[in-house]
């Protein structure tokens, strides 16, 4: 069979027309991702609350950061006090659940695997409302606001932990665990030495996602919080509400930097965690 020379036009004709569309969509996407933070940055270092051309600062002043630094740091601390326990709880709950869903056949397995995704489908405000009636007014009120917010964040972020864990566990050959058993490992030993090292990247990914979900949460925190707890989103909200867009922008900027920093560190860890 003779094959004719393949001309570039012959190749491009079989490809969908994304070639021409994607530069435009990508550009649009990048602009919409990049411009809002630039606006925020400008606003937070601007002398006045109106910006030149809508995105550039009018005059330069670090007043917001110097004057309100303590308040910004406090809200970072409050966010951490909530996000870190939520991440740990999600891992402690998510790992056994994911393992069971992948490895075991049990009654109600299908229902459970749907159920763990539910917090992602529900509008957060609906969940927040339910949690509020449970924690603020209901039987769990004595636990206090911190516990309530931590548990609330755990509930809404658990799918972000379980989903990567499930896909990682599904990749692991069950007989690798069995091989470990026949070589002398107990059930827990086989899990720790054969399964766990292989899912570390996904554990870190899950932790990053839960962390991101927790520090950006607004609705749940708002409905469960008390005046002494001010996470970053709550602080931003209060700043804007009290009429200071510049302060709001400064807190938001700090939030951004902090969140991006943590996520970048976790991303690096994910790459490092797979050494083989």
């Amino acid at each position, binding site marked *: 069979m003779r094959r004719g020379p393949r001309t570039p036009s012959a190749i491009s004709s079989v490809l969908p027309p994304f070639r021409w569309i994607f530069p435009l969509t990508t550009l649009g996407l990048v602009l919409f991702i990049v411009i809002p933070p630039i606006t925020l940055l400008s606003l937070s270092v601007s002398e006045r609350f109106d910006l030149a051309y809508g995105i550039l600062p009018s005059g330069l002043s670090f007043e917001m950061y110097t004057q309100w630094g303590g308040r910004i740091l406090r809200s970072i601390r409050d966010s951490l006090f909530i996000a870190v326990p939520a991440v740990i709880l999600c891992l402690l709950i998510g790992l056994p659940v994911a393992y069971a869903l992948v490895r075991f056949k049990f009654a109600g397995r299908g229902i459970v695997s749907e159920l763990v995704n539910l917090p992602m489908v529900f509008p957060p405000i609906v969940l927040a409302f339910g949690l509020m009636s449970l924690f603020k007014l209901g039987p769990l009120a004595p636990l206090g606001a911190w516990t309530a917010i931590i548990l609330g964040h755990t509930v809404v972020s658990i799918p972000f932990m379980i989903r990567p864990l499930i896909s990682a566990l599904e990749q692991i*050959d069950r*007989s*690798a665990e*069995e*091989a*470990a*058993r*026949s*070589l*002398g*490992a*107990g*059930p827990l*030993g086989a899990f720790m*030495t*054969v399964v766990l*090292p*292989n899912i570390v990247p996904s554990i870190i990914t899950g932790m990053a996602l839960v962390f991101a979900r927790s520090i950006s949460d607004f609705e749940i925190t708002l409905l469960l919080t008390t005046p002494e707890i001010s996470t970053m989103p709550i602080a931003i909200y209060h700043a804007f509400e009290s009429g200071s867009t510049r302060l709001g922008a400064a807190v938001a900027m700090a939030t951004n930097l902090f969140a991006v920093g943590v996520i970048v560190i976790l991303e690096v860890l994910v790459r490092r965690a797979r*050494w*083989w």
Partner: protein
Amino acid sequence: MVNAADLLVDRVTKTYGANTVLDDISISVQPGEFMTFLGPSGCGKTTLLRMLGGFAEPDQGRIVIAGKDVTSLPPNRRDCGFVFQSYALFPHMTVAANVGYGLKLRKTPKAELQKRVGEVLEIVGLSEFAGRYPRQMSGGQQQRVAIARAIAIRPSVLLLDEPLSNLDAKLRERIRFELRDLQKQLGITTVFVTHDQDEAMAVSDRIVVMSRGRLEQVGTPTEIYNAPASLFVADFVGINNILDGRMIDATGTFARAETGFGALEGIGAGQAPGSAVKITLRPESIVVAQGTSNDGAGFPGTIQMAAFLGSTARYEIRLRDGSILKVAAPRGALLPPGSDVTCRWAPEDVRIVQ
């Protein structure tokens, strides 16, 4: 390495729901023996092997390894080396760490551990790969790591579940013999599972032929091939002609049966005259001569299909009543389809059963 191990499967039964996967199986494996479980897909080979390894528990019956009843012991307390079809190597560990895994769990001192790992890798010919990760190795190499890992702990029995089925044909044949050599060298009691009868024939001391959860026959490869205990074995192991007939009479170990193409004699006894029987005859036992014989000896037929296979020729010959005989003839002139021929065989090569 002298090994006092011995393995006993004692009246083991296992059902999954209404499905009887193993039906009253009893097998005894001698120390140092290479035993193969052979049978078609779904006959329960893996299930039985996993029971030996401790990954499944029988509903009834006992499993004894090295004189100890292990029926309900977990895998880590059985002292079995298990090689999985998928190799099941630990992807995050080097070859050396994979092989040393079991020794490490046994708290072997570091120097001793390294020495043993080195020895085992030497045995399987992978010394220079100690530092590699499994994904950097070929299928055949991974297979050898899996075997090395299993024998490094010096188990009383080595259990292998279709360990060669993911390899290409050439490599499969080579590793098959390597495995056999290794087993002889170590003198380790071995149970090997396969559905490939050539493989079973080539490596085993004895073969257990299984079908639908039942034990059909236990015997040496020669016994299984030459004296199949059932029609299933006759059909499953090697190629066989299986013909319908009717019993005429029997004298001693020989019997005569009537077929559509004439009466024939073969080994068989105990069937009532007139009862329906099956007649088995190996293709290589049949001698084909060109032309029709005048003396009345042999059975006339016509060549339907002729194929040249290099070392042998394969024929399908249509006999007088239309039944087809598969024939494997030694190399020689290939007779063309349509030739009239006469088929002969010795009565000792014919078996009259059922």
